């Protein structure tokens, strides 16, 4: 099987994001593989372990620096990777999906494609869907359970209130992974060293001849207003809870 894992490089979730101008931020922060994507990579690797004859190809649309993210997922078990290079800080989901689709079409048809359910920087939640439209393949996102039986995948996703849906999906298909699917294993040193020797092919996005659709355009970015320090409620436990109930009921009107 040929399995593609599509990943994004994003600022570490601990990073402080400093907005620098209307639509940009200070990119001198630590970057990591988008956390949701790691669940997709792990699932692909697990499938490879089972059948032993899968090729796992990691794909990423991002700046030159994103090669580090591809190294990380090759250390997790991807065999080779392709970076579609762009200078944009916020490439649109449409652009990303079109670039990924082009590369996949050129490299050879997919048996399975994993992405994350969303990126933690632009939080678009739509790349798996747009990729599905480009490749005319079925897609299920927010997947927390996956198994493959011949040409049918059985997947699970959570909806509200502790309810889990099971879906049957024809393959090839696109799976938007999230936490619950598996526990990604941190690569050990030999795997990290081996990943350094694996191939990263770099393609400049301008050579792909993609035309982007008009969609939503980032106009302005601003820091979220912070709450600051909490008002500490003091007294004996009884006094504290009584004051709290009064505040929530009378001042805040939330209960």
């Amino acid at each position, binding site marked *: 099987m040929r399995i593609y894992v599509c990943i994004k490089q994003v*600022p570490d*979730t*601990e990073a*402080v*994001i400093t907005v620098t101008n209307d639509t940009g*931020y200070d990119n001198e922060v630590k970057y990591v593989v988008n*956390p*949701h994507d790691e669940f997709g990579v792990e699932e692909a690797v697990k499938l490879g372990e089972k059948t032993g004859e899968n090729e796992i190809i990691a794909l990423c649309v991002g700046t030159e620096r994103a090669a580090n993210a591809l190294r990380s997922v090759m250390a997790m078990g991807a065999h080779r990777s392709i970076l579609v290079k762009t200078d944009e800080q916020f490439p649109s989901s449409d652009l990303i999906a079109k670039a990924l689709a082009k590369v996949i079409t050129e490299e050879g048809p997919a048996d399975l494609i994993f992405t994350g359910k969303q990126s*933690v920087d*632009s*939080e678009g*939640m*739509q790349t798996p*869907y*747009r990729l*599905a*439209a480009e490749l005319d393949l*079925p897609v*299920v996102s*927010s997947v*927390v359970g996956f198994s493959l039986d011949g040409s049918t995948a*059985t997947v699970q*996703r*959570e*909806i*509200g*209130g*502790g*309810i*889990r*849906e*099971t*879906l*049957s999906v*024809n393959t090839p*298909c696109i799976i938007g992974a999230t*936490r619950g699917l598996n526990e990604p294993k941190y690569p050990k040193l030999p795997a990290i060293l081996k990943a350094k020797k694996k191939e990263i092919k770099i393609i400049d996005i301008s050579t792909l001849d993609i035309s982007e*659709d008009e*969609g*939503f*355009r*980032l*106009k*302005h*970015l601003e*820091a*979220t207003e*912070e*709450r600051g320090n*909490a*008002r500490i*409620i003091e007294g004996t*436990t*009884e006094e504290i*809870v009584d004051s*709290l*109930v009064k505040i929530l009921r009378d001042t*805040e009107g*939330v*209960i």
Partner: protein
Amino acid sequence: MSKVGVFIEIVDQAPGKSMPGLISAASRGGDVVGLLLDGLAEKYKGSLEEYGLTELINLSAPNRVLSKHPEAAGHALAGAVKTFGLTALLGVSSPTGNDLLARAAISLKSPLALDCIDINFKENYVKKSHFSGKTIATLEIKATPFVCGIRPNSFEAVQNQVTCRVTDHSALSVGDDTITIIGVESSGGQKDLTEASVIITGGRPIGSIENFKLLDDCAKTLGAAVGASRAAVDLDYAPHSMQVGLTGKIVSPKLYIGCGLSGSAQHFAGMKGSQVIVAINTDKEAPIFTKSDYGIIGDLFEVVPALTKALKTGPP
């Protein structure tokens, strides 16, 4: 007058709790038209026309239960947008809402923004979180029709009694089915977090599955849903479906009570949008006290039962 479509999601056999707020948000953009999947429009319309829904379209497809076939449902929603000349399709950014809105958007080849916290039809923009809640992005809408998911509880419901007309519409072309929902399993008794207006959450110090009962008792007095931090989920004190945060549920209640949470960036990524945050923690230096509205320095095993009691009896 332009017409704005809203996807009416049915939760527990009634329109979801966030529907009134969503209709109020949509009515800023024109007459609001509801889109319902093979549902009982006559039964539901009463609760929706109170908030200004002028038309409810009952979508169906030949030989298909749309609610079991997400692809067909997406095509049916998209088809209705075209047939009825809607300028936008809005829905609640719940798990099902996000899925069907995304499918409708790709079927329409339309722009899509999910989990928006604001929408302005006059100036053509939406606002949504970027970087897990650390920044807010304003996105300009560059094409119509567009599709937009609204985070629950982002808009107040405004009463606006109108008379709602029901129209039946059979979607003709919904494509082939490559995906079918074959099972729905409930872990039983868990209240939905995404749309909850009050949430009480337990962190690592909860210590066991059994101790979550303390939070359940308190939640009952408030009609609240119970959440968990990732640390509590990793230690198997709670199922993953209860996890709030970056890799769990995104919630936006009126009131969020965090019990034994340190206040990690990843947890806040999921609940920063709460209107009022109360933190209960034994450590006065805990970071959560620097980003909450009210703080109680104390042991959750003492404070929570006392709070439950105070809520039951009502304070002086």
